[in-house]
């Protein structure tokens, strides 16, 4: 497949507006502004674009809900919090092609009737902050941002809002709270952000990769776009592969490429010729898969059928030497640290899980601890506001399901790993 999202990434100095424009940036604005906003929304709906942040919600539908709410003050938020462990795909666009994202946001704002946008950027991307602020400044200077863009009466203002280190702010309602200057704790839904979001105004929140698809989708039209990749979720997908593979990195492939293709054809297989043991297909909160799942196609529906999720498309590969108890420990430690504390099952559950894993890692575990872990997961499951708690138990449940032997062996050995 010819690269779309990463087309300009390898061009030297591609974050500069002149270089980006020479290579097609902002060329779709005129096409989009020649359409009615409702037609842009319908085009995205027809293309069946699904959100690339994790949940896979149909983008066009989200836009339609927001655009139908009466009132002139609406917001478009870009989720660049990219905190899901293993995920680094958006970083390539933020650093190398910020103008693709800005163009996507201008078109999206036009479609839903929002004249104000924010990019919620995670604190851990200091370089991206500099690049984005410069790119926005350049876009204002060229008249692509601000009032009366291209003389078509379209207005769009954009700025970066920097987070301060909280995974939970990648959850859309927590992101809104954080943008409003508050603690990043999720809100109850309904009302959904599409009707009452930032500052209680209709708001659309889309991931960096989702918004970056928009200029290409509009330029090529929904019919051509829908022919790329999986029928149930078309388009190009950025797969970020890390862990024990020969060539880790971000790969732009048609949605629905198999795990086997990604790991063996594109990433050069497992490091040191070792045997594959486990794969996390979509970031820390997606259930762990094994070698027998290598032929699953990496799209939303197929991964659910296989017992996992596409999440952010962050593939983490583990070889035969890895102790899965340690893997679950590292991930549970993360979730315990990041639970926002709003819901008791998540706040207490994640920290109890962490305590039990610490005991296991210190060689003080008992075989009963496996059942205790499962019991704690049960007290969290389905009892939280937002998906963090649900995500936190996935590494526990799936590692026990597929690698119970690792737990038993580790506990019986009485070994300790001081981590």
């Amino acid at each position, binding site marked *: 497949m010819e690269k779309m999202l990463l087309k300009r990434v390898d061009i030297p100095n591609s974050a500069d507006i002149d270089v980006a424009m020479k290579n097609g940036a902002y060329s779709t604005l005129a096409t989009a502004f020649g359409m009615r906003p409702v037609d842009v929304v319908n085009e995205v709906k027809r293309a069946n674009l699904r959100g690339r942040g994790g949940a896979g919600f149909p983008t066009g539908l989200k836009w339609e809900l927001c655009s139908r709410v009466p009132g002139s003050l609406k917001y478009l938020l870009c989720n660049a919090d990219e*905190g899901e462990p293993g995920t*680094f795909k958006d970083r390539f666009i933020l650093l190398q092609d910020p103008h693709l994202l800005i163009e996507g946001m201008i078109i999206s704002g036009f479609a839903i009737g929002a004249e104000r946008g924010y990019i919620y950027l995670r604190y*851990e991307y200091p370089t991206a902050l500099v690049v984005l602020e410069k790119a926005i400044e350049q876009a204002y200077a060229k008249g692509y941002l601000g009032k009366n863009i291209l003389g078509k009466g379209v207005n769009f203002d954009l700025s970066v809002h920097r987070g301060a280190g909280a995974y939970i702010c990648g959850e859309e309602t927590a992101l809104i709270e954080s943008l409003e200057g508050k603690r990043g704790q999720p809100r109850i839904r309904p009302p959904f952000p599409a009707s009452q979001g930032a*500052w209680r105004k209709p708001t659309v929140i889309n991931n960096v990769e989702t918004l970056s698809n928009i200029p290409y989708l509009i330029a090529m039209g929904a019919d051509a776009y829908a022919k790329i990749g999986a029928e149930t979720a078309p388009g190009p997908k950025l797969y970020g592969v890390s862990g024990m593979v020969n060539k880790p990195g971000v790969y732009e492939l048609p949605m629905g490429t198999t795990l086997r293709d990604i790991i063996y054809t594109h990433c050069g297989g497992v490091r040191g010729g070792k045997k594959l043991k486990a794969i996390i297909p979509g970031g820390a909160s997606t259930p762990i898969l094994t070698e027998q799942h290598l032929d699953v196609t990496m799209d939303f529906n197929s991964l659910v059928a296989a017992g996992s999720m596409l999440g952010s498309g962050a593939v983490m590969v583990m070889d035969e030497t890895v102790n899965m108890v340690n893997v679950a420990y590292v991930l549970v430690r993360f979730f315990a640290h990041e639970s926002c504390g709003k819901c008791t099952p998540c706040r207490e559950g994640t920290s109890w899980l962490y305590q039990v894993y610490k005991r296991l890692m210190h060689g003080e575990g008992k075989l009963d601890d496996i059942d205790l872990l499962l019991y704690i997961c049960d007290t969290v499951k389905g009892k939280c506001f937002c998906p963090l708690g649900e995500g936190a138990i996935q590494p526990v449940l799936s590692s026990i399901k597929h690698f119970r032997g690792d737990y038993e062996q580790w506990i019986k050995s009485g070994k300790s790993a001081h981590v």
Partner: protein
Amino acid sequence: MSDQHEEAHFCRTAGEKIMFSDAIIDAIKKVQQRYPDQQGAVLPALHIIQKEYGKLTYEAMRFVSQQLRVPESDVFGTATFYSLYRWKNPGRHQIQICHNLSCSLLGAETMIKHLEKKLGVCEGEVTKDGRFSFIRMECIGRCDGAPAMLVGDDYHGELTPEKIDEILKKYE
């Protein structure tokens, strides 16, 4: 996070007008224009002060509260929620080393032990010469270069103990 807060000295100075430099006041006024209400500027205002002074203090939070006319309790609640607002000064170069899964699979714990030995400090402490401090991070989005760390704003990846030694030499 809570350990850090216990160490912070939140001295109460009720009624006293707290002043920061004009440059900071101007920067906060400028960033306020981006938001439809005053509270929106809480996070950026705290960032501005932390960038200038290296950390936040009780006075800083009171100042932001006064500047933005947001209740102190709300500013305090926000500031203490996030992991990367600091309550004590880091070293001249703050090392942020990732210990999440992708980095951990490729040896993050070995790198962290090496750093501890090399610098002679534990997580959160500053070296005697004030040059370095280090903290563990939950995924810095550099999984393709695991194990990875940030020194200040600079990224360094595919770390080995030898490479860490070379990198540290570059920071005075």
